[in-house]
């Protein structure tokens, strides 16, 4: 299967003051397949926005190229534009006109058929229907973000580029937006510093720093690479110190730390479980749980 997005040696250099230059993207090669939801993660200034800006034809790469749904961004930008949608938080909507006028404008320039009906349906789905005839400047941040999502759903592109789609939103609204996006059968490229939404929404991750993709893959694969052992949480009410001392002496325990109400330890191998259980049998445990690496843990380990 051909990738829906393919970047080939994509680089972007910016000129700064006093003849200085900065390489915002450095030979980025990345493939994204149809229907994938890719989380693009990196610290501030890593090159995420530059990467998205190039793929959405907003800026030109210095060298390299990208193919979007079969079209080269350099040679066929207009065909690329028909395949993509970009959302940047609650921006890219007009505050001085009503929500309805915003959606109508985008529906017309993207030639959306039966847009009146679609606008009604999307507004109802996003609980914006009562606000559609109000000026956007009167909307709350959450409502503006919902309108931004409504714009994306209305134009219905093949590929969604989402840059901080939940910035400044409360937890219920964030969850609501994630649920809406999760159900979409679309290719999504998501840039966000909110690791929880990236974790909930994406099935693949690419870590970018200093303009380079330094690691990419599915969460399980990345865990296998970066988890040096099996992390286990033990909750114990009595003899915690004694257990801590005992576990710290064992050669199949790589690390052991005291935490509130118990201990965390890193087991060398899955085969060592039996040996661990035999040690723990003589203690009264309230909980024993294997800890998976969160995307935040992976981010901190990789970046």
């Amino acid at each position, binding site marked *: 299967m051909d990738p829906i997005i393919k970047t080939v040696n994509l680089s972007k250099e910016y000129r700064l003051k006093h003849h200085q230059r900065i390489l915002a993207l450095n030979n980025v090669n990345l493939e994204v397949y149809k229907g994938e939801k890719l989380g693009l993660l990196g610290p501030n200034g890593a090159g995420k926005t530059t990467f998205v800006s190039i793929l959405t034809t*907003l800026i030109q790469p210095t060298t390299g190229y990208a193919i979007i749904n079969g079209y080269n961004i350099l040679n066929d930008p207009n065909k690329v534009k028909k395949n993509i949608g970009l959302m940047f938080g609650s*921006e890219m*909507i007009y505050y001085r006109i009503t929500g309805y006028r915003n959606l*109508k404008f985008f529906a017309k*320039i993207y030639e959306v058929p039966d847009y009146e009906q679609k606008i009604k349906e999307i507004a109802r789905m996003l609980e914006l229907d009562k606000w559609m005839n109000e000026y956007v400047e009167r909307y709350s941040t959450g409502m503006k973000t919902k309108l931004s999502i409504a714009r994306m759903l209305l134009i219905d592109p093949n590929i969604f580029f989402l840059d901080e789609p939940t910035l400044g939103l409360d937890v219920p609204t964030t969850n609501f937006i994630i649920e809406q996006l999760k159900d979409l059968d679309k290719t999504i490229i998501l840039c966000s510093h909110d690791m929880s939404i990236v974790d909930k929404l994406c099935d693949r991750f690419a870590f970018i720093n200093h303009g380079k993709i330094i690691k990419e893959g599915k969460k399980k694969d990345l865990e296998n690479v970066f988890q040096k052992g099996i992390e286990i949480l033990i909750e114990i009410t009595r003899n915690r110190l004694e257990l801590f001392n005992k576990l710290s002496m064992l050669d199949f325990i790589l690390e052991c730390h005291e935490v509130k109400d118990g201990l965390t330890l890193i087991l060398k191998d899955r085969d060592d479980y039996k040996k661990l259980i035999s040690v723990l049998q003589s203690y009264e445990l309230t909980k024993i749980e294997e800890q998976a690496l969160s995307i935040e843990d992976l981010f901190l380990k990789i970046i």
Partner: protein
Amino acid sequence: MKFSKLNIDKFQRIIRKTLALAEKQIYMQFRFKYRTLLNYFAPVITILMPIIILGRFFQNNVNFGPWNSQNYIIFIFIGYNILLLRGMINYIPAHLQQEQYWKTLPALIIAPFNRYYLLFGYFISEVSLLSLPFFVFLITLFILYPISFMTLIIVIILFIGVAIVFSAIGLVLGVITVANENISSVLTFIIGFIFWASCITYPFQLFPGIIQNLISINPIYYLINFIRLTWLENNIFFTVVEHFGHFVIVISSIIIAPILAVIMFNLIYKKLGTSGY
């Protein structure tokens, strides 16, 4: 048959997209109605002093080229309408810059949207907004200095042509504004000087010789002067034959300016991009 249907469909799509942009612009402009309406009166203030000064001159039976006490009303009223349309040069840069600060510019740039739609969308919205004071002045002039209906139609077409040229200049200035505000301020100053040397408010003959030489190489002057002469002579065939050089500059400017503007927009955007997002 199939080919022509395809062309009609394409044409309808172009019109729909262009009108969508124009509609959005008009709604945004009318969010603050007083500001929009007050813009109509700014040219009146600019033209007031030339009216007083020229009035004094013509009291003494002085002629400046074809302009005298009987017909200088044409010069002044057409000057007002040109000043009104001159606002179109600043309209596109101002709105593109607003889009840049509102962070809506990327939405416009990544839309499957030909730059001609952008040019004519802005053009239609501004022309619609200016049409009220424009026609008030035009009809008043028609009453004060009547011409044939055919000449009136041609004058209106010429004004539309001039508005297209001004919009095209605005589009180029607009893309420079979003790419580099510094350069755009310099260009705005140069454009201000070009318009000063295009005889909008004072007749050519009033300027000293050295400035007359400068005016003679200014195409904007010929655009404006041709409209005035068309009204004054009230015979388009005579005007075209008599001022053929003017006519060639007018027609070529109206055809070339939008094409050149779109090419320059794409080149400049490709090269410099936009600060923002």
